[in-house]
């Protein structure tokens, strides 16, 4: 499924053992000092760290979205069969089938849009992770 591919790509489907991390232990003890019970403090600390994990993945999705392949995007397809014919010395059919292949590549590249469209799409795929993470954090804090 596309959604599970996304989560794998950003490492969000991997269960992380938060309880053994230093940040978790320190956050939990800080919250206990603030007057939260051990159970609630543990829940809030885990949810806060999970929320940060999602937001870091969101940043990565925005900042490192698939780059535009300039050479394919700007390729001159009209003159391509002629150039290919001269280079390969093959038949006209060979040249036009290679040109069709490049045409398909260019269409796919352009269909994805420019850098802004790509990063918008990339972040959009992570919306549900943010929704889930903030909802868990909110639930951990509010009954406390």
């Amino acid at each position, binding site marked *: 499924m596309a959604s599970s591919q996304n989560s794998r790509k950003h490492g969000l489907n991997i269960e992380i053992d938060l309880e053994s991390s230093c940040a978790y232990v320190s956050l939990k003890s800080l919250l206990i000092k603030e007057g939260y019970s051990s159970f609630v403090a543990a829940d809030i600390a885990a949810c*806060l760290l999970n929320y*940060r994990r999602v937001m870091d993945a969101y940043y990565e999705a925005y900042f490192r979205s698939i780059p535009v392949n300039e050479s394919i995007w700007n390729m001159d*397809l*009209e003159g391509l069969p002629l150039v290919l014919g001269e280079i390969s010395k093959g038949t006209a059919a060979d040249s036009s089938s290679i040109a069709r292949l490049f045409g398909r590549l260019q269409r796919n590249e352009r269909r994805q*849009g420019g850098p802004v*469209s790509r990063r918008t799409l990339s972040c959009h795929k992570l*919306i549900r992770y943010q929704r889930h993470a903030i909802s868990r*954090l909110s639930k951990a*804090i509010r009954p406390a």
Partner: protein
Amino acid sequence: MKDPVKSIATLLPSPRLLPNESEADFQSSLQGLLSEFETPSPLNVALVIQLNECLWWIKRHTVDKELLLHDSMAGILTRSAEFPQSYDNRRVSMALEGFLSGNAGEEDEQWIEELLKRAELTVSDLRARGFKGAYKHIKMADDLIHRQYQTMRHLQKSIDSVDFKSRLIKRMDLELAVLENNALAIDAKSS
């Protein structure tokens, strides 16, 4: 007592900024939000940092929304001008950016006007067509902005709840202190 901003910053990974963004601006906007609290607890500081990050995401996505529209408008002008298929529309995009913000040089202004004339479009026609062309991605940017607003609402409610809890604890501490004092006074009287 340790500064709660520093103590939470060492425990929780801070939001990351883009290379062109200023850490000082982020911190100043964070301090502005924190100044609303008398003595923010570390948890409230952590939540306010997340809220500040949401505000920054809203700004980024809003800028992107405008960029998506401009890119689509530049694409329409490029196609209408019968440039070769390989023509990179960034040149048109930059000139259009200047034209729309009123900062275009004379040459760029004339060029965009010429392209508009050739496409038989006014600026508002172009904007409407550009919006139609980029609708899918503009809608996505809107969803992202909306998501940040929703997240901010969750965070605000959580901050309220933490604030209420700490005020409640303070009040209970005071009441306990009064009760203890009363008990001590009774003990002293009885002895």
